[in-house]
């Protein structure tokens, strides 16, 4: 097959998660105003403080301007009044067990390969499934409860642990942070909440699965994860959406708090619908993710594999406040067809002897534009701060682009900061070597790409690593000839 045939083959490939589930849903009218914010809050029976917070966020959002400065991302303006801000599967009554969940919904998650049935204990992953804006099921809840771990939907946590919500909500990403974080703070409908008590090592991977289903909706979920001193948790996040011709907005906020010596590992495999080969449709993935290493010796690791979305705008960051705290960021971002990704991280060194590592691998194919944008900031008091960044880009095809924009801002002479980046295409010599040993071109490319991403993929929990490798193969198959 010639390279053009291969490319055609790739671009004709259907997005495997693109089906729509026909399920009755309870939707708010499109548009955004204070009444909608109040309606969302009322539907969820929220305490007064949360409604107040939402309204404050909404009023602040009104004063903000949508950022338009990104030099490497372009898209038509979003009409915020045509989006439906609340959509929930019906009927919305208290569910006792999974048997009561709409079978259509269960089938959806089954199709996506998400183990919701408790009998699938072998997988040993606790899953919180978020459908459109609402958490529909959480597995392994009781087992986790025995250890004092709280894991479930955000709205449940608001009802059952309002004190934790009040203490930590917005403590890492305030509603004033940026345009999309403010919007999310005003209209978020659900999400995941997780609390690990002091000294507890969470025995299984916790996982949230996000699914956008209804048309014209936006998904605004919020994740809050608190790790008390000495605890450990590994958290996974996955996402898909149906194929639609309109663009859909996903503006999520993730907040992590790691107290003394706690370790949070947060992994994402993002596979929102990327749009078709001409760039029609797809998700705008505008997400704010930030973790605070609040205590001494705490550690936050972000690992992400970004293969979906028409546009990805996302900078999972670490505030290294506690002395000796560690921040890590491992990322693989793939853009094919007309996808655009502008992603990276911010490492803010505040405490003494804080360390951060950034490994970013960008792969551009077709007409994809892939940008790494990151910042490393060392404040005055951060004696002995250490950072190592490596950003490599792989180009496949002569119409794509790869860009690197690191910002290094150092105000302490004892800091040691290193940044390296390289951009190249798959070496002819490497391909030749593999083919000479009898591998097909496809296999050779897939092997080289996997090798290129290995430093990141090995950071993923096993269950995810397999999925991620498959995804990489799918998105890039046939991109090089």
């Amino acid at each position, binding site marked *: 097959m010639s390279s053009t045939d291969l490319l055609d083959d790739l671009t004709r490939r259907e997005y495997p998660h693109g089906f729509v589930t026909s399920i009755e849903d309870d939707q708010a009218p499109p548009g955004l105003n204070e009444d909608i914010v109040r309606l969302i809050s009322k539907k969820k029976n929220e305490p007064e403080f949360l409604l107040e917070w939402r309204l404050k966020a909404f009023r602040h959002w009104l004063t903000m301007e949508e950022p338009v400065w990104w030099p490497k991302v372009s898209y038509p303006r979003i009409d915020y009044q045509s989006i439906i801000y609340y959509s929930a599967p019906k009927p919305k009554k208290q569910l006792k067990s999974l048997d009561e969940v709409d079978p259509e919904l269960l089938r959806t998650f089954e199709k996506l390969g998400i183990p919701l049935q408790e009998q699938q204990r072998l997988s040993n992953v606790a899953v919180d499934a978020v459908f459109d804006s609402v958490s529909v099921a959480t597995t392994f809840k009781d087992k986790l409860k025995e250890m004092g771990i709280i894991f479930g939907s955000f709205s449940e946590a608001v009802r059952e642990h309002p004190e934790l919500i009040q203490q930590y909500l917005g403590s890492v990403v305030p509603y004033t942070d940026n345009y999309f974080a403010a919007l999310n703070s005003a209209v978020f409908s659900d999400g995941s909440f997780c609390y690990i008590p002091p000294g507890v090592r969470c025995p299984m991977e916790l996982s949230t699965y996000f699914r956008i289903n209804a048309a014209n909706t936006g998904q605004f979920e919020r994740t809050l994860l608190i790790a008390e001193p000495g605890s450990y948790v590994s958290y996974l996040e996955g996402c898909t959406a149906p194929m639609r011709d309109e663009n859909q907005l996903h503006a999520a906020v993730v907040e992590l708090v790691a107290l003394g010596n706690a370790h949070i590992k947060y992994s994402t495999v993002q596979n929102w619908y990327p749009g078709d080969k001409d760039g029609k449709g797809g998700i705008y993935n505008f997400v704010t993710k930030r973790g605070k290493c609040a205590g001494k010796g705490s550690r936050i690791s972000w690992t992400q594999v970004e293969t979906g979305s028409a546009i990805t705008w996302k900078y999972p960051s670490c505030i290294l406040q506690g002395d000796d705290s560690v921040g890590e960021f491992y990322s693989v971002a793939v853009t094919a067809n007309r996808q655009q990704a502008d992603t990276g991280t911010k490492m803010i060194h505040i405490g003494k002897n804080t360390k951060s590592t950034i490994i970013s691998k960008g792969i551009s194919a077709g007409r994809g534009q892939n940008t790494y944008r990151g910042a490393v900031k060392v404040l005055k008091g951060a004696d002995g701060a250490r950072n190592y960044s490596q950003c490599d880009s792989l180009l496949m095809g002569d119409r*794509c682009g790869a*860009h*690197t924009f*690191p910002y*290094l*801002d150092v105000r302490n002479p004892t*800091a*040691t900061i290193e*940044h390296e980046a*390289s951009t190249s295409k798959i070496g002819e010599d490497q391909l030749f070597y593999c083919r000479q040993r009898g591998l097909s071109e496809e296999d050779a490319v897939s092997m080289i790409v996997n090798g290129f991403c290995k430093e990141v993929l090995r950071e993923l929990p096993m269950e995810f690593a397999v999925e991620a490798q498959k995804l990489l193969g799918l998105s890039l198959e046939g991109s090089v000839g």
Partner: protein
Amino acid sequence: MTQATATSTPFDLDRLAAPAALDAGALGERRRAALEAFRSAGLPGPRDEAWRFTSLAPIARGSFAPAPRPDAATFAAVERRAAEALGAAWRGPRLVVVNGWAAAVDAGDADGLTFGGLADALAREPALADLLRDVAPEAGALAALNAGAFTDGALLRVGPGAALPDPVVVVLATAAGDEPLLALPRVVVALERGAQATVIELHLALEPGATPAPRVVHDGLTQVHVGQGARLDLVVAQLQDDDGVRVHGHHARVERDGGLGLTLVQLGGRLVREDLRLLLDGEGAEARVGGLYLAGDGQHVDDHVWMEHARPHGTSAQLFKGVVGGAGRAVFDGQVHVREDAQKTSAQQTNRNLLLSPQAAVNTNPRLTIHADDVKCSHGATIGQLDEDALFYLRARGLDRDVARALLTRAFAAEVVDALPAAAAWVGDLVKARLTALTEVPA
């Protein structure tokens, strides 16, 4: 040129006056358009990405009049200062430009060389105006101001195949006057097909010691054209203790198989900003850029580099090193841009910074934007301090702390200094003296 001002600027633009030769014909048209562009854009502020880390507030608060032609005594004083700095290298063709006005020239008699004051040259030979290429709008408002209002400067042209035996020296000096001044010099360096030359551009200031506010704003621009197969070595040295504000751009275009070697040495100043824009506009064009910037107490040095590969088979290498002591601040912003059809490009960029004191700060933004796939591009940046082990090694051998620090810092800078052409060896001595002062730690 007295249209209504769109944006208020600290410059008294109504008093602009330039030699008639500059305002005639097509050049005059372009000048008026550029000045209009500056009037509507105004001074860049912190919201401009290119000025995020460098504040022009010290200018914005002042009021600067276009500098008049200085008197003969000032020219002579600059000449003495330059001769002192260059030592034995103060020979061969040379020209002194003060506050944007050229003195009488000592052009030497090399074959194929046209060299002299810019306004004089244009008055004699109006066709030379073609060498003053348009200044791209992306170059920013201050480049537009120079494009619209430069008063004079230097023009250097080397004819086809000519090789200059001696380096050509252009001194760009500022001198404070009775009122705060705005100096707008323009330098044009054009090497025609197969020509070879070494050019030294020396920036210095004649000013009374430290003043609370800058007395002179220098907004200069050097346009460089390296023709097919030509070879230019350009050394830009900026002397220390510059108490004014010095913004200078070097815009270079290199044609097929042409080569440009550029070394930029900045010894520090109140506010020094360099905009280097290089366009590799022919197959096989090559650029090697070395940079060394030093900043001490109250000094701010900012280097912006835009390296654009427009054609296939281009090669570029950049090495920028910075040493920041006291409460100094350095900014480096380097972009490598590879256009869609610039396949087989090889581009490399390195930026290393040494922080010597707790108050020193560095911002570095190395960037790559790549639109072609068959390329090899890489960049690297580091910020750190002197190696403790190396310091210990030297001290164990009997060197005291200051000497050991000075020695290691000098070694750090050597990578750039050693690559200077022989004609600019004197720059190395200045760097050495300045580094020793920067590394001295009060007991």
